[in-house]
């Protein structure tokens, strides 16, 4: 794989970086919400 971006690196890396942060972030957020909902439900069902 070729990582030499020449002049354009200043634009390419931030673009990939922001995309990665946002997409990974929303994935983690969604998984966390799922876990919380699951935990809450099992607590309620045990009662």
């Amino acid at each position, binding site marked *: 794989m*070729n990582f030499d971006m*020449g*002049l354009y690196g200043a634009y390419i890396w931030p*673009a990939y970086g922001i*995309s990665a942060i946002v997409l990974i972030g929303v994935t983690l957020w*969604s998984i966390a919400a799922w876990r919380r*909902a699951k935990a*809450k439900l099992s607590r*309620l069902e045990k*009662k």
Partner: protein
Amino acid sequence: MNFLFRYANPHEFMRLSGVVLPFTVIGTALCLGAGLYLGFSAPPDYQQGRTVLILFIHVPAATMAMGVYGAIAVCSLLSLVWRHPLSDIAARAAAPLGALFTVLGLVTGSLWGKPMWGTYWVWDARLTSFLLLLFLYVGYLALWNAIEDETRAARAAAILALVGAVNIPIIKFSVNWWNTLHQGETITSGKLAPVFLAPFLLMMAGYGFLFVSLWMVRIRTSILERRARSLMQQGAA
């Protein structure tokens, strides 16, 4: 139509999505991984140099932004006309994802534009349309959050989504018209060389798989949250 209603039952949806989710997750990983690998291995584009790599994450994000709004419009229609029970949850679950894709489309588009046109923002037809699309998403989410009664919020948001969906072609047309009026030419991307086609399609597919995966997770979460709420109401009764 019957097919859709067979999985209208939350139970059925939980079961079905539980089976499908591992596959879409794997699909996401494979497509994105392969797409990135091939994309970064390819030689620089003749016309656009290395910046073509930004297109690999700009076009999928922009396409998803539009597509998700379309999905929300369909869910809204199902909700209002056929009273499909899961469609409200599905629409609500998709909206933040669509909004984020729109933001990514704008940011990557801007970063692609700077080396190409010289400025971070250009009022070209596509970017301007996406900016308006972002506001449509924000308004949609704001309306959902503002109305307290859940059913009412869902129905109101559904009406707004459909009004927006009808308006989107008109907005695109008017923005295109405006663009030719004030600038004389559209500064959109040109053709993609064949060597880039494979990674590009893989990235498109990867973004699609990612959305579907996240969408299912969020719908499942909403279903669980609803069960928890009804249990709490029963417990309080």
